[in-house]
Every structure is written in C-alpha cells, then in structure tokens.
C-alpha cells in the first residue's frame, strides 16, 4: 500500500507544481510529506494494537502544501491572501483531477475572491482541461460567463420557486434568456 501511495503522491505533487506555476506566474509550490508523528512512549515499548503488518493511521506521513507567490518568502499558508488561498486550493484540486479524474466537477462561486487577471488564468486553465473533463461552475463573474461554452440561468418566481432556463452571454449586458427550457 505504501508503495502505491508514494507513486500517486509523486504524480499529484508533479501536477500541483506545474498547475501552480500556470496560475501564479513566477511562483513556486510543492507538496511535502510530513514526518510521521513520533510514536508515543507506550507504543514504542508495548504491543501496538491492530493486525500485524498494518501501519497505524497516526503513524503515517501527512501531506503539507508549500506555496510561494512570486517575489515573496515562503510563509505559512494562513498568511496567504484570500485570492492566493483560493487559487492554491484550486491548483491542488486540479492536480488530483489530473491523477484521478472525477466524472464531473461542480464549483460554487470559487472565482469570487479572485481579481480579473486571476479569473482569466483560472478560466483559461479550465477551458484547456475541459476537452476531456466536464466542469460546472456557479458564478457572478462576467469573465467566467463570457468564457463558458454553455450557460444556464436560474430565475426566482413570485412564489419563491426556481426555474432553470438556457441563456446566452452578451458583452456588457450579461446573461440573456434564450428559450424557456422545456419544463416537463
């Protein structure tokens, strides 16, 4: 099991490094395995429960993310800005996608903390991956709307109920209803 994990970890780390550079020009990021926590006193000496040969969960190495935007020192993830954190998280999700793609992805307003340049880079990356992968993204951002291949609108009627309809995007005016989707 450990050997399989190492191979997959290596692949995810490889893709994470590449995708981070695509989203953060001039930045660097890597994944690192943490030192497994030292076994506590009683574990060293006595019997460690569990079947023979299996490794206790706590004794396994964890995965750490090291992210360094351009020009900056390497610092704790918590100090990253709102947009930098979101973009780093998206690089990690897409690195996992590269190694083991899910049938589809649904992102609910993940572009909200991003500035225009980063929305542009993120959407460009999604479009590059979307020839073989389906992405569904809920958004209020006009850059994302303009880039999407298909647009669906959700409207709220007077009785507090929703209707789904197909829309198209017009520069400057935003989403315009096309035809009412056949509501069967």
């Amino acid at each position, binding site marked *: 099991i450990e050997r399989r994990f190492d191979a997959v*970890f290596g692949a995810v780390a490889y893709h994470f490094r590449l995708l981070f550079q695509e989203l953060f020009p001039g930045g660097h990021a890597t994944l690192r395995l943490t030192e497994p926590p030292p076994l506590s006193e009683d574990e060293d000496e006595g019997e460690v429960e569990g079947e023979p040969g299996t490794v206790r969960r706590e004794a396994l190495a964890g995965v750490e993310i090291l992210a360094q935007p351009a020009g900056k020192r390497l610092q704790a993830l918590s100090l990253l800005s709102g947009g930098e954190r979101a973009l780093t998280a998206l690089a990690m999700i897409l690195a996992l996608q590269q190694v083991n*793609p899910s049938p589809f992805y649904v992102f609910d307003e993940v572009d909200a903390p991003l500035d225009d340049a980063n929305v542009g880079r993120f*959407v460009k990356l999604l479009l590059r991956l979307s020839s073989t992968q389906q992405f569904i993204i809920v958004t209020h951002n006009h850059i994302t709307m303009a880039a999407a291949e298909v647009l669906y609108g959700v409207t709220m009627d007077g009785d507090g*109920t929703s209707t789904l309809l197909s829309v198209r995007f017009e520069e400057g005016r935003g989403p315009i209803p096309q035809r009412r989707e056949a509501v069967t």
Partner: protein
Amino acid sequence: MKLRRVALSGFKTFARRNEIVLETGLTAIVGPNGSGKSNLVDAIRWALGETSARELRGARMDEVIYAGGNGRGPMGMAQVELTLDNEEGRLPTEDVEVAIGRRVTRGGDSEYRINGARTRLRDLERLLASTGLTQSGYAVVAQNDVDAIIQANPAQRRTLVEEAA
C-alpha cells in the same frame, strides 16, 4: 464520463419539476442572489449520498423539501435524479448510462435508486468509491468552501491523495 442530466422536483426552491441537460466542457450557472443556484448544487450532493443536514444548510434532512412560498403550499416529497454517462466504464457496472436517484418524504427516510432499482446508501457509496464523488472528495466544492483544502490538516490531505490512488 460525465453528468448528462439533473432532474429535480420538490427539492428546496425547485418545487415544480425542472431538468438541466449538460454537455462536456465548461458550463456556467448564473442567476440573482437567492434564485436557487446553490440549491441545485445541494441537489447534486444530496443525490450522491450526502448524509449531513448541516452540509445542506438545514437542521433536519426533510428541510430539503419545498417549504412553500407566497401563495403556494409546502410539498410532501423531494426527489432528484442524476444521469451519468458510463461509456468509459469508470463506474463498476455494465450499464452505459447510470441513473442515481434519491427521494424523501416529510418525516420519512431517504430512498435511493440506481437505474430505477431500490438500493442502500452503502451500495451507492461502493459504486462511487473511486470517483472523487464521495463525501470526502473534492469534486463538488460548496459556496465559500474552496479553501477547505488549505485549512485541512496534513492527515486529511493524505486521505485525498489516497483516494486518488
């Protein structure tokens, strides 16, 4: 492999039956605040086996059933069906198309179906196990939740890599 269709009725603000047909590529869902976009995302998570009412922003699970609005009474049942295209055989079943359904009535338990046949949650979870669509996967990212991976601890991130193995 992709999500072909989502059909829902009686689920949160989707009182009337609604259906969305999806292509490969990038699809955007747009609409005013409160119109029902995240409710649609909740419907997908619910059909995939979400067991926590809190994750769906409610206190009890039957709060997903349309509670009524101006001049319209509450409904008694919510149902969602997802149709997945399985042409590449990524799901461990012979079927080329897989319909995953869930239905709940007020005060009742959830009923799950795979291609029309009733099934247990455990069987649905086994079907979805290696696809990233599990409860700990990152294929569906809820609103305001994108940097959960950053806030997770190293052991939780390890689980993600293990699921990709």
